């Protein structure tokens, strides 16, 4: 296929639209309507329980961290606080953005706004970028949330374990959004009616960061930044680790989530932080199913899916060599075998559209 162009104004984006790929119907596993209705049912209780645990733990860990500051004995508590601030906020942003975490809309919105601030994402912009990510998952030039662009830049991936690249991108975008609204790239997926919301959210976020910075200068201490801002870096590792597993090393430019998404079975702590998004094929195929019902959905549809990776370590053992290989051969990808009970992969598009991915690229 040659060099990929990830620009929303580039050749790959145009080709995805002109070929019909961008508007194609995606593969879905057959799940009976009554079963799906039961799975989609909303409830406040699981998310209220998890949110109380999350916020109470954050207050506790940050409180102990502040009490022990500046002793190194505070470090474990900052690490625990950081992973909740800089990683659990990613899954809360995600699930509440879908509106599926709680049954009550204002609860989804409240947690979404708080999580957006912590994960350093404009709540208005990113609601729309994620809608595009679901419509056109890993279509080059169309999906604005591709975590591993090919050929992968390994140094950037590793730096982002500490949020470095995300934060470097976030700060100028925040200022630009606060001054003049969405960037030209953002305007490709944010409707004009929402541009004012982008600017207003950016102004609020910027004001909080300026106030925190001013407090740090006044106190002659980085302690305020340990509570607000820096945990997005020192606690980012978990959401980067799980985020890379979502699609890393798999196919792009396909219309079957079994080809471009990965389900990984994980330990209970990671599943709490990640809010069950380890069931990622299931989530992409049926985004209306709340996080707490995804394990049940997995049991129902697993006969139609490639076998899940059995641990984070096993997922990385599959993904990381593929990412390294893509450095030299960006057309390489992992194509996993389906069980005999599954329907074949939907490969019609990328076998027929010139310039699109060909299964022969996998080895």
């Amino acid at each position, binding site marked *: 296929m040659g060099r990929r162009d990830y620009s929303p104004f580039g050749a790959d984006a145009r080709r995805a639209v002109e070929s019909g790929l961008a508007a194609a119907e995606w593969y879905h596993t057959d799940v009976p309507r009554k079963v*799906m209705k039961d799975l989609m049912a909303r409830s406040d209780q699981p998310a209220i329980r998890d949110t109380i645990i999350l916020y109470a733990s954050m207050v506790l860990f940050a409180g102990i961290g502040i009490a022990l500051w500046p002793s190194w004995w505070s470090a474990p508590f900052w690490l625990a606080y950081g992973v909740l601030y800089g990683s659990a906020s990613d899954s809360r942003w995600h699930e509440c953005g879908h509106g599926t975490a709680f049954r009550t809309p204002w609860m989804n919105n409240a947690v979404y706004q708080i999580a957006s601030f912590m994960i350093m994402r404009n709540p208005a912009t990113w609601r729309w970028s994620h809608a595009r990510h679901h*419509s056109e998952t890993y279509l080059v030039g169309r999906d604005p949330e591709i975590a591993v662009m090919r050929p992968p830049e390994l140094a950037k991936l590793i730096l982002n374990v500490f949020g470095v690249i995300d934060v470097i991108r976030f700060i100028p975008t925040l200022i630009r959004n606060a001054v003049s609204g969405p960037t030209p790239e953002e305007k490709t997926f944010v409707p004009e009616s929402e541009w004012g919301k982008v600017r207003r959210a950016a102004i609020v976020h910027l004001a909080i960061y300026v106030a925190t910075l001013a407090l740090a200068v006044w106190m002659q201490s980085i302690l305020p930044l340990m509570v607000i801002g820096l945990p997005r870096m020192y606690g980012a590792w978990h959401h980067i680790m799980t985020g890379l597993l979502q699609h890393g090393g798999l196919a792009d430019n396909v219309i079957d989530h079994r080809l471009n998404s990965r389900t990984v079975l994980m330990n209970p702590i990671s599943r709490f932080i990640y809010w069950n998004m380890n069931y990622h094929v299931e989530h992409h195929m049926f985004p209306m199913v709340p996080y707490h019902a995804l394990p049940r959905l997995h049991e129902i549809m697993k006969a139609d899916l490639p076998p899940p990776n059995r641990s984070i370590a096993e997922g990385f053992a599959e993904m990381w060599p593929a990412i390294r290989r893509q450095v030299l051969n960006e057309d390489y990808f992992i194509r996993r075998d389906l069980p005999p009970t599954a329907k074949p992969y939907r490969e019609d598009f990328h076998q027929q559209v010139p310039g699109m991915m060909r299964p022969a690229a996998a080895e």
Partner: protein
Amino acid sequence: MPWIDACSTSDIDEEDLIRWDHAGKTFAIYHAPDGAFFATAGLCTHEQVHLCDGLVMGTLIECPKHNGQFDYRTGEAMRAPVCVNLKTFPVKVEGGRVFVEVA
């Protein structure tokens, strides 16, 4: 405009919907929790996804692709990413059948 016989009242569970295709167009017919029936255009105004696979919650229909919501009684767009209202159609029930006035 003529009233078209679309389905039986028993074809749709309460708090659910079905897809109904007629004259080259696709519609969604809803059975509200209070027993009333409603009809709207069948495709989401955001990205033209069939609403029939979505979730009915009270008087809302949630799109299966991006979780946008409409009030299916009025067609009003209630939750992003939907911004454009859904077209609605008059419905009447006679003799256990649901009729839709297709404009």
